[in-house]
């Protein structure tokens, strides 16, 4: 069924399989889209929080699924309980008056409760796991196929709704602002523009955030797209890009000596920079030009291959100022982390991406990173025909069997037994809502990325991404700030020092000293997310060969990891197939042909491909039992 949206690599594989003529069934035990790749409205994130706060309940085993296991089958228990998120802490600084009376205005029915209640048909209903259950998974198949077209439509409509909402924003704003000013009549807030232009006078209250909650699209993972990264290439190649819109990141920032400043990294930036001296401009340009094609000049770096990139930079004609920019903001590495070659590679990659779509190398999808899995799924759904190849048996809690040939699962579903030998890394994350940008400029609509290097050895650099309201991820007059780093302690312990450097908690008593003030925090969330990106499949216990494992999000800035993973897995599932080929030109499609002729032969082809590992596939999937 198409209503549930899996993680990014999963949705890419789904789209790719679908393009190659495979039937794909999505099954999800979570109550929201995308797993850890999800994106939430403000009320959505509050529900998510609540879920984690209640997550500790241990639930008993489900019904007698064992009875459904056939003789030649072997069961893998999948866990319902998500252990990938830990140490969730939330702080609200905005004034909370009237809090209880407000509700999110016209909240999109994206989150779980409403989805279930609005989809009363049996088929859809069965696709969702009741949240009490901890044990097995999941879902139906055959009868769902009849539903597919209509649910496609629903998905499509839902997406377009989101966009339409964005476009009619002006109108909505007026109504919202009206109510805001009603609440704060004592403060005499007059105009609609007040929020955006005079944040000092218009205090944003918690009730406003709640009310405007659907303006927020809060991503659990904070990533950007490298404009020449694998994901962009894939979006273009497969023409999935038509379902998404992007904004260019407008600024690269650095935090140095207690000040936030803009990093000049493009030719135009260097030219326009007021902070660099003429000589520095030349030094920087010269070094960057060299990095663009450093491979061609091995004599310039060969002697320094053994040392760290930061040491190498010291040997170059660069002032400390410039060394800092290159190391932390362009190569985005640290004093100790990478050697000369890695640093040069990272710098080259940064520069290579520069200028393709704008003055920085990065793009951000409107409405958040959570949009991207959806794009691939819309694509998949459009391609779907009503057939399923089921070779893998899934038994849901109602005792239904779903038979499928390949089973793709995110590692978060594995039970403790399966991953008893695995050591996971952690990502520390924080999401902030603030009232202004960390670096004020003429335009208040800036999207910035800022790297704050770790202070002590052993701590990691913190990546800060600040989104303005035109990215459709937060309400007007606020900024949504994502902080990410590799964990050394809990998220709050890791990130709070940086938050304190850049922001100040919102307080009722305002100092009138506007100039020296940092942006104020309205709301803050901290949590740790499991990083399973470098765990190899072999580390998991007893996985049959037709179970494919997707990792959760990695801590990197780009999405290359997800795409690589998707492509590798796709090649295993559909060997010799092109990965997400471009869709054919509509003019070249022959419509009158009979496309149902070769079902049998097709099935055997796939079988043969799998016959390399006959033992496991026999134990799990029985070809004879394929679909009714």
């Amino acid at each position, binding site marked *: 069924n198409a209503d549930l949206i899996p993680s990014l690599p999963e949705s890419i594989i789904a789209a790719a399989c*679908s*393009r*190659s*003529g*495979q*039937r794909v069934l999505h099954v999800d035990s979570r109550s929201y889209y995308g797993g850890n790749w999800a994106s939430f409205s403000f009320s959505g994130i509050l529900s998510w929080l609540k879920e984690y706060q209640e997550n500790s309940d241990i639930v008993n085993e489900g019904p007698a699924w064992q009875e459904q296991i056939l003789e030649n089958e072997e069961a893998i228990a999948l866990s319902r309980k998500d252990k990938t998120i830990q140490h969730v802490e939330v702080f609200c600084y905005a004034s909370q008056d009237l809090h209880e009376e407000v509700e999110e205005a016209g909240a999109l029915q994206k989150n779980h409760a409403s989805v279930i209640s609005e989809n009363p048909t049996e088929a859809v209903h069965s696709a969702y796991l009741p949240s009490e259950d901890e044990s097995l998974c999941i879902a139906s198949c055959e009868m769902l196929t009849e539903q597919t077209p209509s649910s496609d439509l629903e998905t499509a409509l839902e997406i377009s709704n989101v966009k339409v909402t964005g476009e009619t924003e002006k109108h909505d704003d007026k109504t919202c602002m009206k109510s805001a000013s009603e609440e704060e009549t004592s403060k005499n807030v007059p105009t609609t523009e007040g929020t955006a232009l005079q944040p000092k006078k218009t205090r944003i209250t918690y009730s406003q955030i709640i009310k405007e909650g659907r303006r927020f699209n809060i991503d659990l993972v904070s990533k950007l797209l490298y404009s020449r990264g694998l994901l962009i290439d894939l979006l273009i190649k497969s023409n999935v890009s038509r379902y998404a819109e992007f904004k260019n990141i407008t600024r690269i920032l650095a935090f140095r000596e207690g000040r936030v400043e803009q990093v000049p990294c493009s*030719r*135009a930036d*260097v*030219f*326009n920079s007021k902070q660099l001296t*003429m*000589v520095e*401009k*030349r*030094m920087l*340009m*010269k070094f960057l030009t060299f990095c663009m094609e450093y491979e061609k000049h091995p004599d310039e770096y060969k002697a320094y291959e053994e040392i760290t990139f930061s040491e190498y930079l010291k040997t170059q*004609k660069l002032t400390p100022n410039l060394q800092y920019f290159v190391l932390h903001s362009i190569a985005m590495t640290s004093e100790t982390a990478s050697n000369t070659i890695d640093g040069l590679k990272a710098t080259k990659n940064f520069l290579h991406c520069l200028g393709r779509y704008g003055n920085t190398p990065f793009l951000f999808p409107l409405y958040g990173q959570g949009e991207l899995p959806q794009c691939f799924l819309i694509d998949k759904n459009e*391609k*779907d*025909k009503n*057939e399923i190849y089921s070779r893998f048996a899934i038994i849901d809690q109602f005792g239904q069997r779903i038979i499928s040939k390949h089973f793709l699962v995110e590692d978060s579903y594995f039970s403790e037994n399966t991953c008893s030998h695995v050591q996971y890394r952690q990502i520390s994350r924080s999401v902030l809502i603030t009232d202004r940008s960390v670096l004020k400029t003429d335009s208040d609509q800036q999207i910035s990325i800022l790297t704050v290097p770790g202070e002590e050895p052993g701590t990691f650099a913190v990546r800060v991404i600040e989104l303005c309201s035109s990215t459709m991820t937060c309400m007007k007059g606020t900024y949504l700030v994502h902080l990410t780093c590799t964990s050394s302690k809990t998220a709050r312990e890791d990130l709070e020092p940086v938050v304190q450097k850049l922001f100040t908690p919102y307080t009722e008593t305002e100092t009138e000293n506007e100039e020296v003030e940092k942006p104020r925090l309205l709301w803050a969330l901290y949590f740790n997310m499991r990083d399973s990106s470098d765990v190899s499949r072999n580390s998991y216990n007893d996985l049959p060969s037709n179970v494919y494992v997707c990792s959760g999000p990695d801590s990197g800035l780009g999405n290359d990891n997800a795409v690589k993973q998707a492509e590798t897995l796709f090649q295993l599932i559909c060997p010799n197939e092109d990965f997400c080929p471009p*869709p*054919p*030109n509509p*003019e*070249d*499609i*022959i419509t009158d*042909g009979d*496309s*149902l002729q*070769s*079902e049998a032969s*097709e099935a055997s082809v796939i079988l043969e491909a799998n016959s390399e590992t006959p033992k496991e596939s026999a134990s799990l999937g029985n070809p004879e039992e394929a679909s009714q």
Partner: protein
Amino acid sequence: MPHGRLKVKTSEEQAEAKRLEREQKLKLYQSATQTVFQKRQAGELDESVLELTSQILGANPDFATLWNCRREVLQRLEAQKSPEELAALVKTELGFLESCLRVNPKSYGTWHHRCWLLGRLPEPNWARELELCARFLEVDERNFHCWDYRRFVAAQAAVPPAEELAFTDSLITRNFSNYSSWHYRSCLLPQLHPQPDSGPQGRLPEDVLLKELELVQNAFFTDPNDQSAWFYHRWLLGRADPQDALRCLHVSRDEACLTVSFSRPVLVSPAAFPRKHHGCGSGAVGLTGLGGNWGRLCDLPATSLNDQLPHHTFRVIWTAGDAQKECVLLKGHQEGWCRDSATDEQLFRCELSVEKSTVLQSELESCKELQELEPENKWCLLTIILLMRALDPLLYEKETLQYFQTLKAVDPMRAAYLDDLRSKFLLENSLLKMEYAEVRVLHLGHKDLTVLCHLEQLLLVTHLDLSHNRLRALPPALAALRCLEVLQANDNAIESLDGVTNLPRLQELSLCNNRLQQRMVLQPLASCPRLVLLNLQGNPLCQAVGTSEYLAELLPLVNSILV
């Protein structure tokens, strides 16, 4: 084929479909073109022609003849239609033009047609046109067709220069490699900051100049290989063309000749030549003008220069150039002259010269700083040389020559240009030295000269030594050296002697070890009446049989010819 996969045409089928489509298109195109030409021939310039041409131009906006057709039709319709109908027609035309520009934003014909159309409208909407330009420059900030059109629109709409300057600012900020934008600045800034009448025209006040210099420095420090910034830099430091002047007047009693040197090439017909000769006590005397440009000479009637009078005053008035000069021939003197001082007038600093040498000095320092970082950047090296010349050509002579050497090494493609430029600078320096020494002897030997220039400045030189250079010719302009008596040009690569013509006082000419091959090239020597010594040793023509006899016949008055 797996299920759910779309069936698509094979590549052969696609190719065939494409081919048929193209064939169809070509047919339509050709028949429409034919119809238009027939209608035009028949004088049927009606709306159907507009329709037909729009079909073709919509696909290929570079069909200039069809734009002409459209203009003819529109002109005819102008007379026939009501104002309302015409307005609708214009609206369609503007929309059509825009669609053509989207097909090819660099189509000369389309932009020109838009200019023409807007020029004819009673109430053109210039604001919309500016917006259109801004859009097209957004897409391609270097589209000079659009820049041209923008300047046209801005002039028609009288857009304040400050606004246009801000527009160039915004585009330079985005990408400074933009000749059009820099050029536009050089037009707008003098308009924005008009100089008082007395000041040099086309120049900027110092505060503005310094700001522009900083801007352009940002550009060439960011990317020193970008030429556009260097060109603008040169414009900033340059000055307007020097005012017309008569550089030198020379009168010779013996030759009964007045010679005038102008500040720029002029072409004067004898009749148009303005003349006035004040012999003390006598009236105006007629002068004969000869064709010429830099050095300009006029023969005087011999009788007018008798030695009876205490002095003769000659005043030359150059009406076209609004300049005049006079010189006096005193009793008992063979000649008289009056000339501008090359040092006082800074004749050789035209290219780079602002009033304040401090500005130049600081520019020189920045460029040297850049050169240290970019030792092989030709633009930087050249600018350093020019700045040094503007500051003090003699003080920096040695350094300049070193920079020339580096520059030639890094830019071998322009070696010959650089040699010529270097020759010019060396000659200027020698001239300055001669002026300081107050002599009429010029030594230019052993300087690696490849070209002779500024010869019009050498009007008074009597002895010229050009030996041991790389000259390949004695150019026609050499004929301006009216006082030259001795010319040494040994050890060059001279092949022609066009300039050794009508030199009234030339007595000695030495041309040893050159490349004179044909006897014919010696022909001009016959026009030098006082030549008595000629040395041609070491030239190929000396090997030829009969050269001595030929020379004896050609130059009967020369009593010593060394072959």
